């Protein structure tokens, strides 16, 4: 029976010595979606991905990839998925072209077909000029693209991308994002691990926020943002002297406390809807208070993360902290986990 889920994980656990890297991760990822796994360094994202990609055997729990068990049917899983890990998994002592031909041959292409696949992929990824160059002379962005190309020599049904843009310049990052979108358009399910909230927000249909080895929230980016509360109206006035006059007006219409920004001409307040924001701006201009610009923004995923975990996503978590945290939390019930979807 074909499962409608690309990834189904139940209570996955993995420890390394005393450190419980993953302690009970559940995931359900629909086929064809781009699913983001968001969390700081050391949260257990990579360990989870490595278990799902058959590289690590779970200590407990089980996972099925496109209906196949990752332990008992590892070979079938490997046929359907591919992994682009944090380290670029390409051979530095070979050329870009040789790397792709090697993977093509290993996947069963005849020599001539493997060559053709390699050159198609090099063209598509803007690497044809560097095809004959040894990978150790590639830039970080080129290496990352080659790595992704190696993962799609045969277009996989499921692609694991572990922090694909970490350490890349903005241009290379945009290129990787384009590739992820194109993959998704072609029907590949993508599991994207990232510590960049921005990246998950742009690419993912669904996000699991993972912290200290557990999924602490999941939902669409919009649901996650909604969970922290409403958005905010940001207003910048032409004349900073008018800020005290503007404050009571904004406070009255939005029925909320107004916050003065560090910028002497700027103020902000929680705002439920764009309609209310328009009303505020209209009223201000009727009262002769000139508005330079305004925006209604949803909270960023950074704020979401902070609200959910009490710390920001960029904060580093040491193994010791993980351990202590787990020990103090071991009796906590699963109701602690906020279910949004």
């Amino acid at each position: 029976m074909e499962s409608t889920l690309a990834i189904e994980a139940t209570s996955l656990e993995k420890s390394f010595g005393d450190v419980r890297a993953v302690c009970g991760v559940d995931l359900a990822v629909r086929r064809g979606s781009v699913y983001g796994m968001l969390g700081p360094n050391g949260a257990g994202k990579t360990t989870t991905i490595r278990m799902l990609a058959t590289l690590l055997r779970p200590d407990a729990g089980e996972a099925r990839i496109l209906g196949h068990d990752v332990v008992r049917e590892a070979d079938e899983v490997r046929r359907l998925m591919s992994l682009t890990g944090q380290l670029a998994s390409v051979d530095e002592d070979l050329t870009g072209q040789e790397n792709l031909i090697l993977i093509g041959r290993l996947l069963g292409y005849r020599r001539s077909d493997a060559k053709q696949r390699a050159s198609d992929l090099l063209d598509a990824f803007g690497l044809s000029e560097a095809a004959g160059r040894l990978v150790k002379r590639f830039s970080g962005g080129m290496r990352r693209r080659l790595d992704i190309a190696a993962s799609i020599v045969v277009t996989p049904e499921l692609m694991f991308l572990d922090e694909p843009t970490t350490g890349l310049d903005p241009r290379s990052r945009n290129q990787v994002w384009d590739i992820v979108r194109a993959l998704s358009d072609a029907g590949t399910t993508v599991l994207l691990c990232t510590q960049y909230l921005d990246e998950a927000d742009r690419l993912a249909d669904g996000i699991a926020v993972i912290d200290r080895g557990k999924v602490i929230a999941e939902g669409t980016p919009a649901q996650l943002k909604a969970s922290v509360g409403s958005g905010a109206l940001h207003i910048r006035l032409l004349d900073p002297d008018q800020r005290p006059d503007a404050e009571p007006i904004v406070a009255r219409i939005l029925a909320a406390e107004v916050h003065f920004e560090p910028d002497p001409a700027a103020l902000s307040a929680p705002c439920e809807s764009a309609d209310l924001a328009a009303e505020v701006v209209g009223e201000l201009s009727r009262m002769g208070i000139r508005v330079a610009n305004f925006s209604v923004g949803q909270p960023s995923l950074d704020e979401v993360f902070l609200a959910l975990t009490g710390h920001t996503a960029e904060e580093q978590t040491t193994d010791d902290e993980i351990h202590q945290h787990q020990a103090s939390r071991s009796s906590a019930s699963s109701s602690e986990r906020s279910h949004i979807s």
Partner: protein
Amino acid sequence: MSTPETQRTEPPTLLEPDLHKALSSSRPPRASGLSAAVSFGWRGMLKVKHVPEQLLDVTITPVMFTLLFTYLFGGAIEGSTGAYRDYILPGVLVVAVTFTTVYSGIAINTDLTKGVVDRFRSLPIWPSAPLLGALLGDAVRYLVAATVIVVLGLILGFTPDGGVPGVLASIALVVVFCFGLSWVFTTLGLLMRSPNATMNAGFMSIFPLTFLSNVYVKPETLPAGLEAFVNVNPISILTSACRDLMAGNDASGDIAITLAVAAGLTAVFLPLTTRLYRTRSA
């Protein structure tokens, strides 16, 4: 999900039609275990081609050993450099090629620490293919090292009575033994933290093993305890076999033991290496 305001803030360098074309590919039939191993062998050859420096280690060390031992110790140990040259040359052949097996461990550790192993492990291929394939590249190194020693010996005046067949047979025996021995170092390579640590541990074990043998001195000149060890050291047995083969004598007993040791090492360490290769993470 689309975020038009963030796309294309910079000119695209990826060609969209190419990208989509490159993604719409078919799935070939699965590669056989043999074909996968051959592909890994091809990888090994390419590495030799792109990084020919690695052959320098393999050639310079044995040349140095031959010259050093022949001219420095030859007179003292055997009375004449010529006699000593004939005594140690088969042994130096053994030492040169066994040293090369350490590089199998370094190579696998490099793959592990650089992350390439993750790629190979996530492919639907026969688990032993990367290991057996890598041996093909190793075989090239073994043959280069062996050839260098033999050619150097001939230049220095070594005239084996066993002739070409005797020399070829001893090279073949050394290569087969080293296939077996290399699994010990691939296992080591998968257990160590870095290529450097692998190299140190590897040479630290191969040095005493080759020195505490009959390669450089006659065992009967040694203290009894040491002599007993030297006589059962597989390196001594292999060296004796090579001496006899090159001298045109019967070596079947030593050959049989050497082949049995190689088979035994393979039987123990190949499965161990395969298992570690599947489970170790960098």
